[in-house]
């Protein structure tokens, strides 16, 4: 009975007893969730438009962050370094379309998936070759990102909001809204959705698949850069960061591989869920459940709702 009490009742009593701590945990989870959502967004963009599960999204985040910091260290002023990094991501998108996607068109999904492993290792090698393998400090100050924290008195205690986290949330929201408008309301956005729905029909109305792929991979590159800056600001920019891409998997399973809103909601659920789990239930098993709780949630979803919250059946293709 004691164990049931500890699992089912005690955590909620704690939440009630110290609501400020509860809010703090939710906020931490929210920020982590926003960053998960950003990574998942990169996956969804590419999966929708080209049907490829892009294993390289994680390394693209690292590569974009490394390029930015590396260019700064080479003496470029920060704003210029951002622009050049965007240029690099565009060239990368062009190269991937030309060298990887175009020759593999009409190949089974698994082959394209494996090709993204190739891209991953290529980018690791290229990144190490140019910028070295050591972790780097993100240039937060130079990019005018705030630091420090705001303490808010509420619910009989203090809740701490890191300014960088607030900035991350705001930037993520702005970017997601911008992408949504871009997808819904513009010609190119319409073409992107068209390609996602049917390659054949898209070709027949004169949409060039090659062009769309470049745009999509570039967009994913921009998302990767923003994610890289934000994650880099919280820890540092290193190749270890790419494992966060694995965290995107449960997010995608939760939200559905083809849904942008799904990526966001899934990211938030996983982020908040794992922080709450770690804080209130973690001590029961000696802590450290943050690293695997997300996968358990995903497993539960796979059993009962394999298409995710918002996705279509297309998940079967993986």
């Amino acid at each position, binding site marked *: 009975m004691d164990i049931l009490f500890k699992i089912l009742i005690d955590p909620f009593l704690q939440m009630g007893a110290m609501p400020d701590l509860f809010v703090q945990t939710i906020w931490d989870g929210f920020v982590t969730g926003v960053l998960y959502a950003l990574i998942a967004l990169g996956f969804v963009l590419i999966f929708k438009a080209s049907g490829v599960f892009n294993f390289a999204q994680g390394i693209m985040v690292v590569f974009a962050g490394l390029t930015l910091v590396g260019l700064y260290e080479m003496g470029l002023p920060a704003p210029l370094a951002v622009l050049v990094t965007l240029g690099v991501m565009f060239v990368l998108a062009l190269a991937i379309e030309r060298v990887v996607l175009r020759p593999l068109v009409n190949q089974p999904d698994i082959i394209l998936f494996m090709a993204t492993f190739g891209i991953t290792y290529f980018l690791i090698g290229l990144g190490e070759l140019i910028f070295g393998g050591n972790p780097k400090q993100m240039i937060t100050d130079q990019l005018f990102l705030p630091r420090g924290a705001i303490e808010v008195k509420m619910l009989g205690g203090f809740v701490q909001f890191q300014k960088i986290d607030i900035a991350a949330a705001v930037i993520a929201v702005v970017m997601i809204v*911008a992408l949504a408008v871009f997808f819904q309301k513009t010609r190119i956005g*319409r073409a992107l959705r068209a390609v996602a729905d049917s390659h054949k029909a898209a070709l027949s109305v004169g949409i060039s698949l090659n062009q769309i792929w470049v745009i999509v991979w570039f967009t994913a590159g921009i998302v990767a850069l923003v994610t890289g800056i934000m994650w880099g600001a919280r820890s540092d920019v290193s190749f270890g960061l790419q494992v966060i891409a694995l965290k995107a998997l449960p997010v995608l399973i939760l939200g559905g591989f083809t849904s942008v809103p799904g990526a966001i909601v899934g990211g938030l659920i996983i982020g908040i869920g794992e922080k709450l789990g770690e804080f209130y239930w973690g001590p029961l098993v000696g802590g450290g459940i943050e690293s695997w709780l997300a996968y358990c949630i995903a497993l539960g979803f796979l059993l009962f709702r394999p298409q995710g919250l918002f996705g279509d059946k297309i998940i079967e293709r993986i």
Partner: protein
Amino acid sequence: MTRTSQSIQKGEVLLAVDQVSLSFGGVKAITDVSFDIRKGEIRAIIGPNGAGKTSMLNVINGFYHPQQGKITFKGQTRSKMRPSVAAAQGIARTFQNVALFKGMSTLDNIMSGRTLKMNSHFFWQCLRHGPAMAEEIRHREFVEDIIDFLEIQAIRKVPVGKLPYGLQKRVELGRALAMEPDLLLLDEPMAGMNLEEKEDMSRFIIDVNTQYGTTIALIEHDMGVVMDLSDRVVVLEYGRKLADGTPDEVKADQSVIDAYLGVAH
């Protein structure tokens, strides 16, 4: 609706297929087929299943690249062409199994047919302002005309995946019309339709042809429809051309009767 092409007058050859052969590995889909399509006519392509009709449309709009032969469209000869280029030159098509953007509304589907006509700068599009907005409105008016013409006002905002098959075919026709094509390829526009839907579709096809002067090539299995609608008919069998001529000539052709029609109607 159609941009009248200055160089080619009604009745002149708009598209010529010259000794085209297409094979997939050892399977010959099309063998040495030649025919032409004249501006302003309705040209039917008929034949038994597997005769190479759809392959022929795929060759014409650039999905397939024939191993031999030439295609001349509006006086320009080519053997290989990408579908997006064919679309830019004025070839639109529909598909045997409807190929629509199922998650998008009827309106967005038809708007996607305007892709090539819209050319405002990427920058303005992202902002949805200035020239891009004006352009969007202009094209929207054009698309509304098509929606009126096809009598699908009521389903303007409905995601097409939810529509019944007959209406989906109509939306697909609308999307092709939005491209203002010089040549419209219809792959079994009436397959799977009931009598009433077939009559509607026939009416639309005739109206498109007479009102806008659009040249149409269509594949259809309903012989009644084919003989009524078309000006000339080409018959394929096993990838070869069996006959070519007016509906009456084709109907009377003994080889066509043996291969496809059975007893003469």
